[in-house]
């Protein structure tokens, strides 16, 4: 799932794919703003057929946290 997420992230921000790690922070390291970030979550909902709980969004800071959260929804 990490690799898939990485691919999608590249549609939003111009960073080298190699620099994206599980520890990358969406806003501080990858350059997302709050609107980009919400749009990304919307795309993930469609891509992975999940429903993101808006109350949980504030806890997602890093790519690794997003992967973990999506996996929890998938299971």
């Amino acid at each position, binding site marked *: 799932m990490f690799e898939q997420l990485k691919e999608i992230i590249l549609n939003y921000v111009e960073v080298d794919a190699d620099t994206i790690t599980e520890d990358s922070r969406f806003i*501080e390291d990858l350059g997302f703003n709050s609107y980009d970030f919400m749009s990304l979550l919307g795309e993930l909902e469609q891509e992975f057929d999940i429903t993101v709980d808006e109350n949980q969004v504030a806890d997602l800071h890093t790519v690794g946290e997003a992967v973990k959260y999506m996996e929890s929804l998938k299971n």
Partner: protein
Amino acid sequence: MDKNKIKTLRDLYEEAAALYGDAPYVKEKAGKEIVEKSFSQFADDCHRVANYLLTEVGEKLHAAVIGPTSYAYLVSYFGSVSTANPVVPLDAQLPCPDLCELLQRADITVFFYDKRYAPMLDAIKAACPEVKHYICLQENDDVISTEKIVKEYAPAEKLPEITGDTLAAILYTSGTTGKSKGVMLTHGNFIDNAMCCDGESSLGESILTVLPIHHVYCFTCDILLGLRYGTTVCVNDSMMRIALNLKLFQPTFILLVPMIAETILKQIKAAAAAKPEIPPQMIAQAVFGGRLKGIYSGGAYLAPEITKAYRELGIPISQGYGMTECSPRISSSVFTDENYGDVGTVVRGCEIRIEDGEIVVKSPSVMQGYYKDPEATAEALTEDGWLHTGDLGYVRDNRVYITGRKKNLIILSNGENVSPEELENKFVGKDMVAEVLIYAEEGYITAEIVPNPEYFKDKEKTEIAAELTELIKEINKTVTSSKTIRRIRLRDKEFEKTTSKKIRRQQSEQGEII
């Protein structure tokens, strides 16, 4: 719609029902389906909610509504105001203690809540004993709900008299500084503002409503103008799903704040760069769903470069200026206007004068005062009804220009005044800067900057500092010497924002000096 016939919000939706009948007023998602509600159904359902409130609650009816925009939200809102009592729309992002504080301050007795607030109810009940009636917006087995009320109650046959002077809503402003204040707006205030311009929309058009419904800009320009013109209001169910909902509903208009307009523009440019064989105008239309005729922008400063870029993509932007205290529109531009840095022409019925550089307005849209706050009211409103906006600016050829906020003014030791917004606006469109805040520190004008990580990828801090220093030198060449930026602070995380996404002027941490 005959403007002279409409004095109250109830008149407005009743007249909309008479004129537009079975045409769709609200479209929203329910699972995988799209549900449509007509103008007639809407008026009926508002009268059902009013009937319930008058029958079951009776006296002492101060209702608050909280939640994202939905059909149930709107009928709860309009049903409440139709009982001749005010409604208090609250910010759906408020934490529980702040919410309780506002419920107490606004003397709330009836609480309409979105089901996502259900886990907070015990805490609210403990803190707010005056709230006697809890109504969930969505149908929910064991509790009373708006959806149930509209199924089980008949429309009220006789409703209390309302006039233009009847208080319709108390709106708590978030503000970038200080404690929130309850702006009191009457039915007449809202109706005046909904009627103060012409030609914004028409029957058969549709608008995707994406801004928070407790904001008066969204309420007046999406919801009330929808009723006035017969426009379909399509509900965006989440900020996460704007892109999806644009494709689903294919709106002809959309109201945005500049931050969203700028971000979508960035996405369009990136998509156009990746696919140079496709005309960028086609990409832009595809992003907005394929039928968009124009964007309305408000809530913050929109740089002329953004207007120009959208126009080149075939999407005109109209921008407005206003404030909650003025229901909200004070000035507005039309799609054919060039944006030369102004915020449009003064709307019909509004007078403006400038006092010590501050914009002061008088119009039938101006609030009655702040709820239970006579001191703040006396500061903002003169006895003869002029409203001090707190904004600095001027009017030329009936066009309004804003230069800053009075309370943010930096007063230098030589007595000269500098507006931080004027300097901050010079950073708009500079790719290396993600965000900037200007303030005075130890007598120096300081620019605290969040660098754009995309621009500076793989760069060392010293390189970032050198490039930003160069940028500041360039900007300093464009201002008088008293306004030059003399200190730069580099910040590695986004600024703290208000719930309406404006940067707070008071931050809890500072970046380091470079």
